[in-house]
């Protein structure tokens, strides 16, 4: 009963820190959020692993560029197979573009063959505001020590055109690859591009 109540609420709870926005090189703030299967995740539970946060809105043309081309799914598959925790985060408020129920999200993940570790339903926008997530997509990477090592765009070509993906530099793969090889991240920030996150007003 308690479990049902929890999952139906699908709450995202911000645990620490009232400051707005994060800085690369600093400890990423902890949060708790419920996924589309009703399971609760707390960032600090994943210490020792790399964590990717991917802000998502299934109606946004920039998100669609990376899903309809299969690019996002390829990244999810590649990096989760290498032990990375990948959270798709949906901060669209009810009534706004990209808002989904848990069931709708599960259907979407299945239809798109998306394989994040989990899709977090952040309908109050608490996690989004905590990280100052601006666009969909907007990508963050947290290292095994819990430090934010990347905050920015998915790649170097800020367009809605799928044909640009092949020639763009993928900043997420670049940062994860460098960090895992023990190198400093050469591009730790970039301008995130896409639609604005559709927060509750």
């Amino acid at each position, binding site marked *: 009963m308690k479990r049902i109540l929890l999952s139906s609420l699908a709450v995202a709870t911000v645990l620490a820190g009232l*400051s707005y*926005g*994060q*800085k*690369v*090189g600093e400890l990423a703030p902890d949060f708790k959020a419920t996924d589309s299967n009703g399971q609760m995740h707390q960032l600090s539970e994943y210490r020792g692993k790399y964590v990717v946060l991917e802000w998502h809105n299934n*109606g*946004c*043309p*920039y998100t669609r560029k990376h899903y309809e081309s299969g690019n996002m799914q390829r990244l999810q598959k590649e990096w989760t197979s290498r032990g990375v925790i990948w959270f798709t985060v949906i901060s669209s408020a009810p009534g*706004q*573009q990209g808002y989904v129920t848990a069931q709708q999200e599960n259907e979407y993940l299945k239809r798109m063959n998306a394989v994040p570790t989990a899709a977090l339903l952040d309908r109050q926008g608490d996690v989004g*505001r905590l990280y*100052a997530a*601006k*666009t969909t997509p907007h990508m963050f990477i947290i290292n095994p020590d819990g430090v934010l090592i990347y*905050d*920015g765009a998915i790649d170097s070509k*800020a*367009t*809605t*055109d799928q044909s640009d993906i092949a020639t763009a530099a993928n900043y997420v793969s670049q940062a994860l690859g460098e960090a895992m090889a023990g190198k400093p991240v050469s591009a*730790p*920030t*970039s*301008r995130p*591009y*896409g*639609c*604005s996150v*559709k*927060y509750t*007003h």
Partner: protein
Amino acid sequence: MRHRCVIRSVCHFLVGAAWLLLPTTSLAENPGDEHVKVELVSENEAIVPHHQLRLGIRFDLQEGWHAYWLNPGDSGEPPRIEWRLPAGFQANSIQWPYPTRVSTPPFVDYGYEHQVLLSVVIRTPSGLKEGTTEKVIANVHYLICREVCIPGQKQLVLELPVKDHGTASSNALLFESTRRQLPKPIPEGWKISATSTGDEFRLRLRIGKVIGSPQFFPLEPEQIENAAPQNVTATPGGLDLHLKKSSHLLKSISRIKGVIVVAGTAYLVDVPILQSSGRGPVQSKHN
């Protein structure tokens, strides 16, 4: 979808007839078409040999929708134009009128509402013959947003006669009013400097008495927090404008470039940044 022409001459006739009716022809349909009209327009009704040609992409946006400036701010994407010009013609870059702050809390975009003309100077070759026509094609990619964003792409075509004199087109007044919105060089006697202090850049404007608050629009992304208020403090001989540094700015920068709008006129700013402590930027801590 492409229609196949069984009888080519009929198709040529139909296409030609459509162009006669509509000097600007769009060859693509977009889901956002009901929210924006995009046209290729000319300041002059003709091309005059040895005179530069001024063309533009005119956006007429439905209430609530906006298109983007060169630096779009927190989200979005600026329009792009790919030209297909007659031999010897050359397009300069877009002349961007100064934008407005389009606020959808907690974000601020830099863009245009209602109407904007992105004008471009086209250099024409010598040896153009009067009485001929030249065809210009602009392939325009753009994004418009309201609560949602819709990308669009249009191929726009304009045919202009070559004449020994030009007459103003119906868009000439729009070209004229747009020219007043283009950033100008800083006037003689003004002095603008920039200092990096803690978590802000301070623009010091020695420009005399100012009515209203100036607004700064950065040309480079991720240098200042777009949505932060730009506070003004009075100084002898002018004022200071306080710009909050972007949390994405991990290294110190040596120059700040942008457009400053003072009492309805825009000026180009490109100044070195002085470090206030002499030891590099001070790292700020918020808690």
